[in-house]
């Protein structure tokens, strides 16, 4: 490689301020850098510098076929693979003019909500670490394991399962749960809640999933007492990083950030898709507009997700889970489509243009983290340096999802 020639050197007048990089190796920020300018302990400017994990997903989409695009489109947010690939699948289905079978709609909803909880648990657990509460991280990851097991039972993989395909889901949920898992759940239940599970833990998949949901709901109440209601956490997050309602709308932020600023907007309600119209759930919003509100919205969303999973499991009809079509090569007519779904971090939208060939002509991913990115320089201004991690993580910003 030829070394780049230095053509000119710019010299800046720095004055009394100090500019430094936060990241990309910061333990909390992930592969993301913020160029922070401080005056004493106060941040005067924050310039986000994403792109360290840019992998050219959109260009890659033009090289792969409609079906082989699915696995790599999950990679931007592996904890929330279902949420990322959901709008892609919806968009392709709308271009093709097909509807998935009823059972597939429910299975998709269950998978999406399971992954929403898993993603939010990661958010909440790391928020505990940022706020100096490492126990929360251990709790969240311990409990998450049983939800990830459910994902594995349904989709075959713990996180990136490539479960959704245009025209349904890849396979049906199993009828039975392995004995070892049931035994393990029983042990964990006793360890965490200090009492035995009432009666036998069911081996039937539906009833086992309901048991896990019930267990997790109880644990959520403990999370509230442990972290969200603790005075240290409230002191660190309340009034920190205030994003007013009108700013939230004009900046175009999504998900818990938008709802934490008091805007009741959720794609699952606004433009319902798949089985969501048949399920009753609330869209939690908070008026505090601060980091605390955003975390609380995330917390209540987990409660709602548990309700959604319980309803979906009970209402799920029997039947096929996939349309009869070629497993690899599908025909997608020419046209344009813009489809959205509610991923864990907020509304995720895909613009797809098809030219009638076996590959997309153009795929644009409007990922939630990219849309929340603009809130960072807005919020990290006139704050203390110590508040940067709290504000940053309260946006649930995921660098890979932003860079794609």
């Amino acid at each position, binding site marked *: 490689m030829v070394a*780049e020639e230095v053509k000119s050197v710019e010299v800046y007048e720095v004055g009394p301020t100090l500019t430094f990089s936060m990241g990309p190796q910061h333990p909390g920020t992930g592969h993301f850098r913020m160029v922070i300018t401080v005056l004493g302990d106060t941040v005067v400017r924050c310039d986000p510098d*994403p*792109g360290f994990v*840019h992998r*050219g997903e*959109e*260009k*890659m989409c*033009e*090289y792969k076929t409609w079906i082989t695009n699915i696995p790599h489109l999950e990679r931007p947010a592996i904890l929330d693979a279902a949420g990322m690939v959901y709008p892609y699948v919806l968009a392709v289905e*709308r*271009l093709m003019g097909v509807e998935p079978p009823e059972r597939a709609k429910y299975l998709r909803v269950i998978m999406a909500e399971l992954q929403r909880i898993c993603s939010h648990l990661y958010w909440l657990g790391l928020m505990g670490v940022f706020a100096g509460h490492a126990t929360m991280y251990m709790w969240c990851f311990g409990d998450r394991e049983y939800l990830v097991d459910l994902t594995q039972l349904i989709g075959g993989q713990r996180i990136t399962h490539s479960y959704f395909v245009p025209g349904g889901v890849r396979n049906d949920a199993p009828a039975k749960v392995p004995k070892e898992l049931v035994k393990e759940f029983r042990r964990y239940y006793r360890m965490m809640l200090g009492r035995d599970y009432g009666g036998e833990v069911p081996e039937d998949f539906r009833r086992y999933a309901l048991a896990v949901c019930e267990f997790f709901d109880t644990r959520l109440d403990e999370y509230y007492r442990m972290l969200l209601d603790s005075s240290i956490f409230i002191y660190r997050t309340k009034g920190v990083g205030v994003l007013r309602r009108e700013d939230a*709308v*004009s*900046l*175009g*932020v999504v998900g818990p950030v938008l709802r934490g600023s008091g*805007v009741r*907007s959720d*794609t699952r309600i*606004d*433009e319902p898709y798949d089985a969501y119209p048949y399920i009753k759930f609330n869209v939690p919003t908070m008026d505090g507009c601060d980091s605390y509100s955003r975390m609380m919205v995330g917390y209540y969303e987990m409660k709602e997700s548990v309700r959604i999973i319980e309803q979906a499991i009970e209402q799920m009809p029997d039947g096929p889970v996939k349309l009869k079509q070629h497993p690899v090569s599908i025909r997608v007519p*020419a*046209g*344009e*489509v*813009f489809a*959205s779904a509610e991923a864990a971090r907020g*509304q995720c*939208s895909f*613009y797809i*243009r098809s*030219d*009638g*060939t076996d*590959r997309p*002509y*153009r795929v*644009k991913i*409007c990922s939630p983290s*990219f*849309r929340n*990115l*603009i809130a960072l320089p807005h919020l990290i201004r006139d704050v203390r340096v110590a508040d940067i991690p709290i504000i940053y993580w309260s946006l649930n910003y995921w660098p890979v999802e932003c*860079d794609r």
Partner: protein
Amino acid sequence: MPAAEEALNRIVDDLKKKFGDKVLEVVIEPKKIAKVLVAPECIKEVAQYLKSEWAMDYIKGVTGVDLSRLPDKPQEALEVIYHVGSMSSEDLRGVTFSLSTKVSLSNPVMPSLTGVWRGAEMHEREVYEMLGVNFEGHPDMRRLLLPEFWSDKPPLRKDYAVPGRER
């Protein structure tokens, strides 16, 4: 969602009436997309009108498309599409309206809409680096995701081929 389709039809009709010949093309397909194509000179005016009259105050994304390899009608142009919605109007909840314009591939310049939709700032920066569209009046026209030393063509243009991969 018939209500949303109806609202989109009303917006498109209103734009046609208000801007007449300036509306160059309309693509309206239920459940897929509602798109209005205007000339780059008047896109700012149309955007301003959408925001003030139809309460389209929420930007969802900006897409750039290179049209030079479309199989049926290739054009030496880049299309820039703004996907917008509304948070202040209850009737327009869940509606996405796409406002687009075409700029030439040789001289891709168009006015920035950050003055209308503040949230378009990062989206326009992405279109700038990925397709090379210059947005006039953008407050901070720098690269965003690509490495600083990138010296090839804008990568999402169709004439940029990914090394080591064949289409």
